[in-house]
């Protein structure tokens, strides 16, 4: 009795798809509810937009067969145990060989041993250094601090020579720890003084105490790093209200509207940040229109990475002619480098840092906020 309901659902689902066409199932594992859902929905939407695009053109030609691409999304609530459940379900119930996701270090590290054993290919996103460790079937399909921070800091050194003393602020979790050490190294390498380093709890809402401490070190730039955009806004405002007059940078994920809304227009003047895609480009406009058909919340730059990832995965499958042999598909993805994405010229790298070339390098965008509006002032090409 216990197991019959899901099986019935599975059968119904199977019957719902057209009988004459073959289906290629792509799994998505990401939080769809709870904190982190905004990112998880970007994964889901990115994969679906790419799949819809292929399906609308009549399907994906693999060898002599044509496949309809079916995206199966499971919510893992950002919890490791749920991720393992979802991955198990995808691999063993749905027969999925390719997974987009998961998000978050705990999720990836818990899922990796089992996907690795069955050679399931994962196109993942997590900031942890361990993501690509001991693995043959994981790609990281977006740049992390390690990739984009050094060029941004170098740009800052050149273009804002007055800045000398930097204070670093990041959330107290895997992502924050890792990105803060990268920031620390990058700023020091470019001759900045790192005068303060602070971590905060994600649940915190009042940052005045931590800012008081930070401001006592007299910084002229506060680097907000991987602080979630929803928290970055309040931090900026509270720092201004405590009398801080210096620069803000956030080389680690920006949502301009969210930050300006929460911080106030006057407080964000001159803010510099990292974006994965240009919000004023026609690509953004197109993707946003597609996104609106799937989810009703605001789209972030995250969607680009997963749209692109799904796209080059499908291209590799079509090129190799196999929907089962993940090793062949993996090699094809690697060999396609460098390639074009919606964002621009991208390639695989990371051998020096991670031991394998499965880290995505893409152009990144330096955004400056002026009068409450974000403008991309520089497109920074990736460096190996």
């Amino acid at each position, binding site marked *: 009795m*216990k197991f019959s*309901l899901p099986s019935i659902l599975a059968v119904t689902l199977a019957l719902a798809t057209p009988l004459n066409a073959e289906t290629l199932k792509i799994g998505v594992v990401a939080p769809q*509810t709870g904190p982190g859902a905004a990112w998880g929905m970007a994964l889901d939407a990115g994969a679906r937009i790419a799949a819809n695009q292929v399906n609308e053109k009549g399907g994906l030609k693999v060898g002599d067969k044509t496949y309809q691409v079916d995206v199966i999304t499971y919510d893992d609530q950002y*919890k*490791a*145990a749920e991720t*393992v459940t979802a991955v198990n379900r995808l691999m063993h119930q749905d027969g999925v060989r390719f997974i987009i996701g998961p998000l978050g*270090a705990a999720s990836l590290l818990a899922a990796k041993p089992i996907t690795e054993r069955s050679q399931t290919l994962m196109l993942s996103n997590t900031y942890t250094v361990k993501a690509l460790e001991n693995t043959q079937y994981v790609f990281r399909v977006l740049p992390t601090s390690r990739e984009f921070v050094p060029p941004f800091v170098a740009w800052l050194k050149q273009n804002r020579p007055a800045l000398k003393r930097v204070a670093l602020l990041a959330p*107290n979790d*895997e992502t924050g720890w890792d990105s803060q050490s990268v920031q620390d190294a990058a700023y020091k390498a470019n001759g900045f003084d790192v005068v303060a380093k602070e971590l905060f709890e994600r649940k915190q809402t009042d940052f005045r105490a931590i800012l008081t401490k930070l401001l006592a070190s007299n910084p002229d730039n506060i680097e907000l790093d991987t602080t979630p955009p929803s928290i970055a806004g309040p931090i900026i405002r509270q720092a201004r209200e405590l009398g801080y007059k210096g620069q803000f940078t956030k080389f680690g994920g920006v949502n301009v509207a969210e930050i300006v809304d929460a911080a106030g227009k006057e407080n964000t003047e001159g803010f510099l940040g990292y974006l994965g895609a240009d919000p004023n480009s026609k690509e953004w406009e197109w993707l946003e229109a597609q996104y609106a058909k799937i989810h009703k919340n605001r789209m972030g730059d995250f969607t680009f990475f997963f749209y692109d990832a799904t796209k080059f995965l499908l291209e590799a499958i079509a090129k190799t002619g196999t929907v089962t042999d993940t090793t062949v598909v993996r090699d094809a993805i690697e060999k396609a480098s460098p390639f074009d994405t919606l964002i621009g010229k991208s390639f695989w790298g990371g051998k020096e840092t991670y031991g394998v070339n499965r880290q995505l390098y893409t152009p990144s965008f330096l955004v400056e906020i002026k009068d409450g509006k974000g403008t991309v002032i520089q497109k920074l090409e990736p460096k190996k």
Partner: protein
Amino acid sequence: MIRRWSFVFSVATLIGYLLIPLLINQIFYTHLAILIGIHAILAVSVYLMLKIGQLSLAQAGFMGIGAYASALLTRDAGVPFELAFFLAGAIPALIAGVVGPLLMRTKGVHFVLLTFAFGEVIVLIFVEWTSLFGGNNGISAIPPASILGLQLIAPSSFLILTAILLSIILLCCHVAFAGDLGVVVEGLERNEALQSSLGVNALAYRCLIFSGSAFIAGLSGSLYAHYLSFISPEAFGFWTTVNALILNVIGGAQFLMGPFLGALLLAPLPEIFREWVHYQRVLYGVALLLLMRGLPQGFLGLILSRLGGRGNR
């Protein structure tokens, strides 16, 4: 009569729990069954405390201590799994034994809140003491469980281990409560003052149960760690205990089989709601509310009242 039937029913459920996934032979169901087992063991530890009329919100913290102990001992100290598994129970039991006389002086809601704070402290220590526990990075590459040199990598073999341990734990609790301990414990829940006036050291027994429940929670933590091979602090927070409590309430908090049955019943719920992922939380909450209203004694209470028994186990 009821007593014998409930025993047969319990054994049948346990055998079914083990065999159905093995017969279906699909890793996903095996995996679900393993998670059910681990959650059920944690829920049994909550049940033990409910048995003496107290609710402890520190159980997930004890589970975490067991998980970290087992993971670090096997991975870094080279301790064999069998011993580490035992220590995963013994260490939290010892901690509970030490703090028990302090914590257990409070009762009722005060005890609930005190254990809530204590559980938070445990998790925060995992976060803060980075050199030992790895902080928010957690601990990865935990070796798989192995019994007598046999590595339990295949989910089915891990399920067998889980099912056997769950059965042993349930049997031990059953035997213990059927005997003299059960007499003392029932008295503690119903009228502690009178029990003390008859010469029973209530505090000592309460601490014993607290310690025992920490032992069991620790074992569930060890299973969790070796099954997932990765642990991090957030898995052992307050909501994990609350979920274990909910399993008790759904299954029937006054029955030893209640927590296990609750775990069996709740496991498919997310599967059923999966199609309406964005409505999932609301539906889950409503289902919980309806269960609370409709089945105040849990499912076992419903079954037993249908059978006309008063049901003491």
